[in-house]
């Protein structure tokens, strides 16, 4: 599915992801982690799109197969030339940046956007949180932007 890059839609995205995870057999104890990790990934993508390509929707894929529930959040922020070079580059392990490294979102803050620098938190914090939550994380830089692939163990389909 895809959604307009507005902060108000992030809550809906994480609730849908959590509901699908539950139906896919992800243990209740892990659902909070799914909710938070998906929220972080979608928040990051929305911020990147708002800064660089607000007309482009954010994509999220939810699949369950082979005992895993997988979520992929895909942004297209690198289609904007300004974004080039600000995403974590390849060859750095799983792509999760250390705190303080760059993420899409350079330039002046858009209206209503939180200024991370003002808050003294590294902009890569969201990805660091994802890495701490998801059972398996792969962050891949594509020609269009960043793809964050996360997965958790799941059981039988509970539908």
């Amino acid at each position, binding site marked *: 599915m895809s959604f307009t890059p507005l902060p108000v839609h992030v809550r809906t995205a994480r609730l849908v992801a959590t509901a699908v995870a539950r139906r896919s057999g992800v243990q209740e104890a892990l659902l909070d982690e799914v909710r938070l990790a998906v929220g972080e990934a979608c928040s990051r993508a929305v911020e990147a799109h708002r800064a660089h390509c607000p007309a482009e929707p954010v994509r999220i894929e939810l699949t369950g197969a082979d005992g895993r529930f997988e979520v992929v959040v895909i942004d297209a922020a690198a289609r904007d030339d300004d974004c080039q070079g600000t995403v974590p580059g390849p060859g750095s392990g799983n792509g999760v940046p250390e705190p303080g490294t760059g993420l899409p979102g350079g330039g002046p803050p858009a209206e209503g956007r939180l200024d991370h620098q003002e*808050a003294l938190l590294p902009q890569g914090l969201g990805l660091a949180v994802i890495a701490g939550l998801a059972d398996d994380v792969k962050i891949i830089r594509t020609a269009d932007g960043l793809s964050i692939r996360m997965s958790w163990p799941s059981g039988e389909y509970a539908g």
Partner: protein
Amino acid sequence: MDLKLDHHTKDGIEVVDVEGEIDVYTAPRLRELLIELVNNGHYQLVVNMEKVEFLDSTGLGVLVGGLKRVRAHDGSLDLVCTQERILKIFRITGLTKVFGIHDTVDEAITARKSEK
């Protein structure tokens, strides 16, 4: 669940009661309230998060921003939180070492008063 914010003064410390979800959509409202309180001269803050159902890194950023503002006036910002799912994100990010995190508002106020 949207975000509900309220605040009151107790023993000379401004207590901010937060209820609901703090995320990229709602966090700006909390930030605005913290800025307003500091601008009005409230430099000793306790943020009661006992009714917070969700907190992400955006919300953490707002809390750290609030801490930065009150510290600029030799103030403090303590948290009240006992929910494991909320505490987890503070642990992952190492912010348990930055904030004083207490079980109750009274405990937070007592701890702050004893440090004066």
